[in-house]
């Protein structure tokens, strides 16, 4: 009996076709099985918890170039979408204003600028007297070398007492 044997080149091509077909089918089956498997696995795994447990998020975040991300943001557009009026409505402006008033001691400024504070004329008299005080002090120091002017100093706890080092040689105008 004679069996027609195809020439070697044709056999190779035939085998290639079979192999392609088989591997293609296996690929399809395996892909479907794998997808199904992954689906099932993901259904059973709490991925969030897994990431939290296994991934060092801090390190990843540290590696991010946040500046570049921020630079790409259109902050103006974001702000434009904010309802500022509702934000302002939620602020307690009175309390905020009270905080500012207390912070800068506004009552103290008003007190010191009005009745109790020196008028310009009185202020001038005080400054002149202060200069005269200092002149006398200097003169006496010259006559009495033992008098040490470093010591005519500061009384602790009085308003605005400045350290002795900051003291001017004489009050300027």
């Amino acid at each position, binding site marked *: 009996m004679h069996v027609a044997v195809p020439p070697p080149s044709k056999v190779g091509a035939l085998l290639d076709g079979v192999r392609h077909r088989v591997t293609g089918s296996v690929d399809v089956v395996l892909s479907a099985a794998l997808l199904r498997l992954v689906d099932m696995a993901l259904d059973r795994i709490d991925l969030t918890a897994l990431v939290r447990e296994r991934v060092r998020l801090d390190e990843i975040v540290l590696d991010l170039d946040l500046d570049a991300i921020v630079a790409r943001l259109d902050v103006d557009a974001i702000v434009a979408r904010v309802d500022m009026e509702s934000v302002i409505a939620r602020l307690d402006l009175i309390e905020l204003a009270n905080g500012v008033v207390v*912070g*800068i*001691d506004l009552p*103290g*400024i008003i*007190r*010191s*600028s009005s009745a*109790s*504070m*020196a008028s310009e004329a*009185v*202020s001038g*008299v*005080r*400054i002149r*007297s*202060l200069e*005269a*005080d*200092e002149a*006398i*002090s200097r003169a*006496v120091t010259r006559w*009495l070398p033992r*008098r*040490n*002017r*470093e*010591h*005519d*100093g*500061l*009384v*602790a*706890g*009085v*308003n*605005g*007492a*400045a*350290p*002795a080092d*900051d*003291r*001017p040689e004489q*009050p*300027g*105008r």
Partner: protein
Amino acid sequence: MTETGAVPHPAEAAAHPDHARASLMPQPAQDWQGRRAGLVSRFLAAALDGLVVVALLTAGYLTAVGARFLLSPGSFSFPSPGPWFAVMSFLGLLVVYGTVLWATTGRTYGNHVMGLRVVGAGGQRVRWSVAFLRALAYAVFPLGIAWIALSRENRSVQDVVLRTAVVYDWLPYLPPG
């Protein structure tokens, strides 16, 4: 008290340690706040106080004269107290005036005009007893103020004895506490 060691007031230190206090005070004056005042400022303040007491005495005399006139206009004549009475009234009123104002606000009217304040060694308001003794000492021995010129800490004799100080303090009040 150390002469150079500025101890911030507890209230100020607690409130705003690094916050420069807003003030309308002229800059040259700011550097002198809390320092012991010299002879000229204090002499002018004392002279003003003397004038105030004389004005108060005059007002009191006129009030008494007016009352006397209203009570008996027919036999009215100006009372003429002797010089001894006038001097003693002046000194007595001076003591009351100084005691009350130094113990309450730390400043007489003269101190107020000159931007001065009488404080204790730690910068605190003086006690009533100290204020009284200080006022009495000034009434009896006003020349004690001259010691300021010779004292290296601008102290009068009264300041030395009673451990008080007179400082430049233009602000209208002492910090609370």
